């Protein structure tokens, strides 16, 4: 963390703490806002919050790890949500899951080493008629075949390379 990033963090936490200080259930609310700010809860931020809120770090981590919503690792650039709900499962989404895990060398809930993809498993995206469904960021892919997975993912790969250029 650079000095400048550190200052931004201290300011952010100071303002969150002063906003929520005297309210009940403030820890969860502050963690929400921190996660919105960073996309996850970085350890330096959790340590600073522990100091500023006079709350043991252990308690903060108990809350973070209890709720699926909170993340301790930075999110991937693109979030893959793969549905394992009943309809998608029956239509073979478990095969898609294995294909993605193999292609990207990543486990469920984790992010690829290059930070490009995060693989989340979800239950029902509300469009069972399109089963099996994969959602990447805000784009939904329906009736996905195993053979199509590579092509779908590579679109995001190319995009990344272009943006790097």
């Amino acid at each position: 963390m650079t000095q400048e990033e550190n200052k931004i963090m201290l300011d952010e936490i100071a303002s969150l703490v002063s906003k929520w200080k005297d309210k009940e259930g403030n820890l969860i609310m502050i963690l929400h806002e921190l996660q919105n700010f960073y996309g996850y809860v970085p350890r330096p931020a959790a340590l600073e919050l522990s100091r500023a809120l006079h709350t043991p770090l252990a308690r903060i981590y108990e809350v973070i790890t209890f709720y699926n919503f909170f993340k301790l690792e930075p999110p991937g650039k693109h979030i893959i949500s793969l549905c394992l709900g009943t309809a998608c499962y029956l239509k073979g989404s478990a095969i898609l899951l294995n294909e993605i895990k193999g292609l990207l060398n990543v486990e469920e809930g984790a992010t690829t080493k290059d930070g490009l993809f995060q693989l989340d498993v979800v239950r029902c995206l509300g469009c069972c008629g399109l089963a099996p469904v994969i959602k990447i960021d805000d784009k939904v892919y329906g009736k996905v075949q195993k053979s199509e997975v590579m092509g779908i993912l590579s679109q995001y790969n190319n995009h990344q390379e272009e943006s790097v250029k």
Partner: protein
Amino acid sequence: MIKAKINNLLIEVNDGVSILEAAKKAQIKIPTLCKHPDLPPGAGCGLCIVRIKGTPKMLRACCTPLEEGMEITTHDPEIVAVRRTVLELILSNHPNDCLQCGRNNNCELQTLVADFGIRDESFQKFLPNVAKDDSTRTIVLDAQKCIRCGRCVTVCQEMQNVWALSFLDRGFCTRISPAGDIKLADSPCIRCGQCSNHCPTGAIVELDETARVWEALQDEDKYCVVQIAPAVRVAIGEAFGYPIGTNLTKKLYALLRRLGFKAVFDTNFGADVTIMEEGSEFIQRYAHGKGTLPLITSCCPGWVDFMEKFHPDMINYFSSCKSPHEIVGVLAKTYYAQKKNIDPKKIVVVSIMPCTAKKNEIIRCEEMYASGCQDVDVALTTRELARMIKQAGIDFNNLPDEEADQMLGDYTGAGVIFGTTGGVMEAALRSAYFMLNGKNMEKIELNQIRGLEGVKVAEIQINGKKIRVAVAHGLNHVEYVLDKIRKAEKDGTEMPYHFVEVMACLGGCVGGGGQPYGVTDELRTKRAAGIYQNDENCKQRCSHENPFVQQLYKEFLGSPLGEKSEHLLHTHYRARPVYSK
């Protein structure tokens, strides 16, 4: 009072008493793996379910208060079957390596499984893949053996206010760990070992260093010496069937000689020296205005670690005096070595301690090497010593009484009471009174600062002046005392106390993290009674009267707080990060 029936037996208990407690009064033992007498009910294990007439569900006895007119059944075939299933489910997540476990034959889970006669694996085994954590070099955390009862977490967070351990994640993934799955050594852990003392299984045990001691004892080139802490002598007997609190000092001396130690010393001698130094420090600060008041005691390594991490603003108040076993260690490798003409590099000092934190204290900073080498080489807990005795095949119960070796072995009553809360303060005041008045107190027992109340406050009259003292034990009680000091600091008013004693463990060292299992307030009280009895039986009861301490200063150290004493017997403190990762 509440009247109710348990298994058709009419009983009467106070309002608010749980069914579990009430059943005990009716000589009925309801099994539990999570409820511990020191801790509030956690309703974690589900073993203590009972049936209450008129209630369709079985309820947990640990967290259900007895109510007027209740009719309770604690044992019937269905209840026993449910308990059996609970045990089988726990076993489905618990390894089967009992024979090699640190709690073999002393495990609450193993005992219940044996009592229930469980022979088969009824559920498929699922063991989490987690590595052991021995990073603290004092306790070993083996999360695979954890049954998630929550005792250690409650102890660490609520009793000790350390918050090193927590429950992370949930469901199947729930695990005990420091925040962020870091190693315990990088967490706030102060190594007090209370978690290991409260764990029902082998998930947290002391780091066993007996092999190192056996090896040193076999090495003909080494000169092994040993010392025993005050609280060990009244607890070791529990491993050999003695009534709780039996003082076995003289048998221990005989035993340690038979194990092969060339000299047997007593940490109580070091305690007497501590009082000479710390008492003089107090007089310096109190009567001569040199330094800040209150003086805070520093014998307890758990407390020192806690202070350095959480309350470094208190460093100036701390006594710089080392703890008694460190004093015996450094004197063994200097004073004793010179008098006996032994090369200090060949001397191995082993300390038998009621404490796991002592394993860390012996390497905590460069002052612990004041003799030119590490002053204390190995610190064993009471539990480790009990194992050594059994391994050696010595019939401990029938050993004759023997005496300690001279120069570092004789002690006064003031030295032995170091092993219980209030003892260091009482011992210090006995000698401080003498140093200020030239004569001893008329009544040297200070009952105001004895007992198990979390914070004990007293005023002692010396020369018409009042000395205000506070004694705290169990680290959750410390904040109260420190806040008062901080408030006086901030307001610029007179300090609330002149002298403060803190011990990290409830009851002091008698309730230490390295002591035999199953500690309760009743047991702490009995162990302390053994210590106070030892004090009363001592010919000399004030540290300054110890002829060997007087000789030590005359022949070797010079005067308390003199140059040599400062070099050998004192240390420094520094602020340490609460988390190093």
